[in-house]
């Protein structure tokens, strides 16, 4: 499944509302939500916060984000075996991930990278892209 391309303009169009929603979920100031801050490293997000963000974004934008979709999208066309071996992201997987998470600064991609650590890369921009893609896949009625 090829990813639907998302432009910078599209990201910036949804960013203010995404930032506001994320600030509500994380209980922080909206000013702290910078487009490229790592949600886990920079804003202390926990796994339950990610779920909360997804719930809130679904309501705020009237979209559906299937559970598990974020990691699944991050894998793209690759099979699980092509993407990871024993919980470590493969070279191919890493190449795809860098492309999919193009907004994440290169130095944040550690090697070897554990699959469990992928969420550490996620930024508000990652979620903006998720929202834009969900809007394109199922435009609001």
């Amino acid at each position, binding site marked *: 499944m090829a990813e639907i391309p998302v432009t910078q303009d599209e990201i910036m169009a949804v960013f203010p509302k995404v930032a506001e929603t994320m600030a509500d*979920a994380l209980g922080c100031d909206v000013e702290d939500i910078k487009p490229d801050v790592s949600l886990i490293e920079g804003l202390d997000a926990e796994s*339950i916060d990610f*779920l*909360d963000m997804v*719930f809130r974004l679904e309501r705020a934008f009237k979209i559906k984000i299937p559970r598990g979709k974020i990691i699944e999208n991050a894998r793209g066309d690759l099979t699980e075996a092509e993407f990871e071996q024993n919980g470590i992201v493969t070279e191919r997987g890493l190449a795809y991930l860098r492309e999919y998470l193009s907004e994440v600064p290169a130095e944040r991609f550690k090697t070897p990278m554990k699959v469990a650590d992928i969420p550490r890369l996620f930024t508000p921009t990652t979620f903006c892209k998720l929202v834009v893609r969900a809007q394109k896949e199922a435009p609001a009625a």
Partner: protein
Amino acid sequence: MIPSGLAGRSVLVTGGSRGIGRAIVELFAEEGANVTFFYKGNAEAAQDVVAKLRDAGRDAHAAQVDVTDAATCHTAVEALAARTERIDVLVNNAGVIRDNPLAALGDDDIKTVLDTNIGGVFNVTRAVVPYMVMQRAGTIINLSSVAGDKGGRGQTNYAASKGAVNAFTRALAVELAPRKIRVNAVAPGVIDTEMSQDVREMAGDAAKARILLKRFGTVQDVAYAVWFLASDYANYVTGQVFHVDGGFKLE
């Protein structure tokens, strides 16, 4: 004494038209909670509960929901949240019993009991949790059973489903603790209800001999325990399976 905190809260009870569920619905409604309950098929019993509570000036709503149907649960929970704007308390009470020795259990006896008693807990809780997470508040009480810990002849299906409820309760308590959502279970012993009639008739005296307090429980005995766990009095209680069984002894 501080108030229980239940007045005005939005409470959802599954299996609320009869037995223990009905007693829970009535107790919470009397406390001034805004109670919604799901019932599977007995519309007459459900309407009776609602009518009696409304006559008494209480707030209660009923919705026909088969908890084994995930999509229906999701839709019904969304409708509830749209109406009440929040969900403060979830009581997973809906349950069925199909006792028989293991070798005599039909496929449907196993499937129905597991799908309802633990599958239903998954279906309803999964739909409710997002609201509690967003609220950063809420409490969930699952109805377990003495059978979940202590077994019971002819109850492999039922005991397995209730053992699963206990494990579910503890795991979800861990998962939701960061959002201050409490998850507990109440494990009734032999309670005087329509559902346990066969058990009481078949093993009544033997069962009673194992109960320290020498009587079967009432639906109110169970409802009070649920009420306590849902109230602010239990604010420091999570991940527990609270036995309400008159002191049921191990064989």
